[in-house]
């Protein structure tokens, strides 16, 4: 909470202070809770038109977020991976806010479950045993994206 006020305060000043900063304030929230809040050197998200890497000082942007990976490089250089199912992204020169529908840390993805979901979705598509084509396709993309994030983390 204090963090946020601090940022708002700085935002209101709107000075050139952000041009000097080498990190940005990143907040990732979903309906289930606050997922991440802290400084990051860079954050990579799949925006509407494709993957974007956001560095401090980026121009203001509002975008939808495609299902896929969120990668962030923290202040100490360590990386974190998340799987996001969709949502919105707001970029201000020194703050980035990701409003996620659902988001899972790569470590928390149940790979077994994702593999099963992928298999099920592929089978449904192959045998045409699905209620709705788009839903089935979305299921499949979701499972594949989750797997990709989970495997990347392991590497």
């Amino acid at each position: 909470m204090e963090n946020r006020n601090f940022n708002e305060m700085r935002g209101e000043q709107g000075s050139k202070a952000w041009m000097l900063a080498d990190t940005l304030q990143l907040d990732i929230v979903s309906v289930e809770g606050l997922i991440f809040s802290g400084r990051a050197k860079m954050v990579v998200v799949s925006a509407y038109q494709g993957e974007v890497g956001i560095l401090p000082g980026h121009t203001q942007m509002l975008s939808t977020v495609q299902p896929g990976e969120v990668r962030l490089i923290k202040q100490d250089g360590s990386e974190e991976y998340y799987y996001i199912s969709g949502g919105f992204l707001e970029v201000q020169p020194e703050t980035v806010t990701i409003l996620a529908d659902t988001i899972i840390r790569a470590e928390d993805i149940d790979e077994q479950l994702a593999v099963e979901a992928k298999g099920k979705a592929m089978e449904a598509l192959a045998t045409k045993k699905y209620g709705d084509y788009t839903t089935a396709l979305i299921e499949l993309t979701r499972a594949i994206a989750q797997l990709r994030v989970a495997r990347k983390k392991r590497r």
Partner: protein
Amino acid sequence: MATSRDIRTKISGIKNIQKITRAMQMVAASKMKKTKDRMFASRPYAEKIHQVITHLGRTNPEYRHPFMQVRTAKRVGYIVMTTDRGLCGALNLNIFKKMLIELKQLKAQNLEADLCLVGDKADSFFRSIGGSVVAKANHIDNDTGVKDLIGAVKTMSDLFVKGKVDSVYVCYSKFINTMVQKPDVIQLLPVTVSHTEKREYIWDYLYEPNPQELLDGLLRRHLEAQVYQSVVETLACEQSARMISMKNATENAAKLIDDLKLSYNKVRQATITTELTEIVSGAQAIEGG
């Protein structure tokens, strides 16, 4: 004067009630934990999305979403959040009081109100006092998610977009802490931001995809998030208010039992004294005779 037997029945009756209120207090306490967790978990999202919308209000976009259209009010929509069940102190009553004040103010300005009721209590209250009800959402409990409210929210936002109502408010119980709940009214539509603050330079977002699509999604999500948040706040309020009022009820029952026990003993002693006096005076009469 009540006989000792009457008082005994009364005491045992109150003891039974006390057992029930104590059980309800404990149930509410454990439910409160869950609802509070849920409320605190979703608060950051509601706050952040509101913050984004606030930023959006500071921009100078070439496109204005219907949700942001400010019109002079002729009709006002209210979403009233109450609980399904009673026995939670003055929680719902405070909401109704707040609503009555709001409605009175509207009437003074010759405005009319459309209501969307959430929770059984609002339903029965407005059925008795009247009012134009456009939507209802009942059976609000811990499993209530965003999808259960979409219908009610959509009715209201559609009315707004069609110009049937010119602003939409939500009246709900705000969770301050376990002891304090405050009825609160917030404006949902139109999405407005105060332009009082000084703007240093004119800017606008890069929108991906186009502003229409993006803002539509974002503003709808914002609306849902605000309504969802007010529901979970109301639920958390319900449980904590119930816990407190049941705790009071249990304590009051204990006090009542103490008082009754005192008068029971008095009655008992009085009977014994009378009996003794009778015996003694009887014996004296025999001796004397």
